[in-house]
């Protein structure tokens, strides 16, 4: 009994070095240029979805926040932290109100993906994979989730052909160190052991940017990305 407390402390220290001493990369993604103005989506052809939105939802090709921040940017370690194993828990892609949630879904290669239809209408899920296998499945309301996993890293565009405004992305990565920026444009990649890393930021219409960074210990390094938005 007496020895138990120090034992636990030693155990925690031994088991969680990454958590306790890992480095962190954090930063912000911003843009220059004029973003495409989001347009309201006309769902009148699908009343069961239209009535779920008090005001029409907007297109999500480019979503910006205050002070030129950029949302829906996937920031991930593209070299230096390859993880062989996919997490055991599945990621979920939900169709609700004829909209994908989330708009960009990151996952690990081989990780289970559940596609859920929460609507009262049929959707077809059509991931337009080019490196992986393209498939296209119907999912009527009330049917169980469609389960799948991807073999190779790829940014896969996802479409519903029945509702052409529905548009999203699967970001299939070979790392578990990733983040998607919110409206404040910030990201944090914690728990990085010392080493050299390449950090990549991906934005749907503007492609990728990469930056190299070295983590030496229990430190937080900051890098920012700035996308020059495509003129429209």
């Amino acid at each position, binding site marked *: 009994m007496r020895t138990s407390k120090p034992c636990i402390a030693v155990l925690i220290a031994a088991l969680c070095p990454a958590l306790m001493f890992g480095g962190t990369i954090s930063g912000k993604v911003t843009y220059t240029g004029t973003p495409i103005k989001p347009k309201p989506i006309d769902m009148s052809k699908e009343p069961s979805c239209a009535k779920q939105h008090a005001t029409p939802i907007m297109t999500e090709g480019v979503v910006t926040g205050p002070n030129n921040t950029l949302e829906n940017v996937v920031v991930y370690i593209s070299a230096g932290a390859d993880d062989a194993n996919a997490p055991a828990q599945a990621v979920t892609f939900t169709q609700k109100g004829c909209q994908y949630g989330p708009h960009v879904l990151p996952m690990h290669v081989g990780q289970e993906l559940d596609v859920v239809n929460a609507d009262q209408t049929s959707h077809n899920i059509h991931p337009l994979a*080019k490196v992986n296998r393209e498939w296209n499945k119907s999912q*009527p309301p009330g049917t169980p989730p469609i389960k799948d996993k991807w073999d190779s890293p790829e940014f896969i565009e996802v479409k519903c052909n029945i509702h052409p405004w529905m548009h999203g992305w699967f970001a299939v990565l070979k790392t578990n160190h990733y983040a998607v920026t919110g409206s404040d444009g910030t990201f944090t990649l914690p728990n990085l052991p010392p080493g050299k890393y390449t950090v990549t930021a991906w934005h749907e219409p503007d492609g990728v940017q990469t930056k190299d960074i070295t983590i030496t210990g229990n430190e937080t390094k900051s890098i920012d990305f700035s996308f020059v938005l495509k003129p429209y």
Partner: protein
Amino acid sequence: MINLKPVHTFSAILTFILAAGFTVARAQDVPDVGPHPPAPAKHMESHIGNLTGHSADAKSDYRRYCAGCHGELGDGQGENTPWLDPKPRNFTLATFKCRSTPTGTLPTDEDLFKTIGRGLTNSNMPIWNTLSKQQRADLVAFIKTFSPRWEKEKAGDPIKIPAEPPITIESISHGKALFTKLECWKCHGPQGKGDGPSAATLTDSQDNPIRPYNFAAGTDDSRFKCGSTNEDIYKIFMTGVDGTPMPSFADVIQPNDAWDLVHFLRTMQVHRHSRENDVLKAAGGRIPPYVEKEAPASQSGNGAGGGGN
């Protein structure tokens, strides 16, 4: 005469230097993009029944009969391509419309063999039954040299198709209910005329506009893209037409229900003579509303689930 030689040599050297310089400059400046010829050494086989096709034997046939549309590199960018709609298949993607296998999987050799022999209706792909079976088998093997998928992946397992139940007015009626419930009409239209609310916005996976099938335009000699028999229709909606908006319904329709849908789809071909239309005529030409009979019992089917992941 004596003077000519050095001039000649000089100009030859100059030409060489210029050409070499140009080649080097090109190699440095031009980014490495665009299609590359497939690795020439790759040899593929196809197996159709007791026929074995060899890709090497199809080289000249491919050039002569296929490359004009499908392109020398198999990328669907032949010299005729700009004038064609729908566009010729890009073999480098290894995505095929007519399969007996689940969505997202490679077709069987026999699927490709049948497509070549059948041609694709409503497109510029003719019926190639003028080529011998051996030639077609060789071409199937040749098509498989264009994508590394054929070396890494096996063809999918063909979906199981139970024997067709009798055509009855009840079957047609249930098929109609499924057509409504599964929202086939969103693209194909309530009368199957290809004029549903989503029809105008459809594009294929290469972003080319594409039309849903117009059942009502069908006549006695009309075919579907992937065949003309009831079994072919069954396959089309259970496997999906990959590369197009048409999804697979294998996970959501029970096998026997699928036959009911086939029977109903036949009645949408109003100008086509069919057993289904005879049954409908005998029933007074009207499809009675479907009455669900003790729901679970009618759903039991035979459980031979088709596709899957």
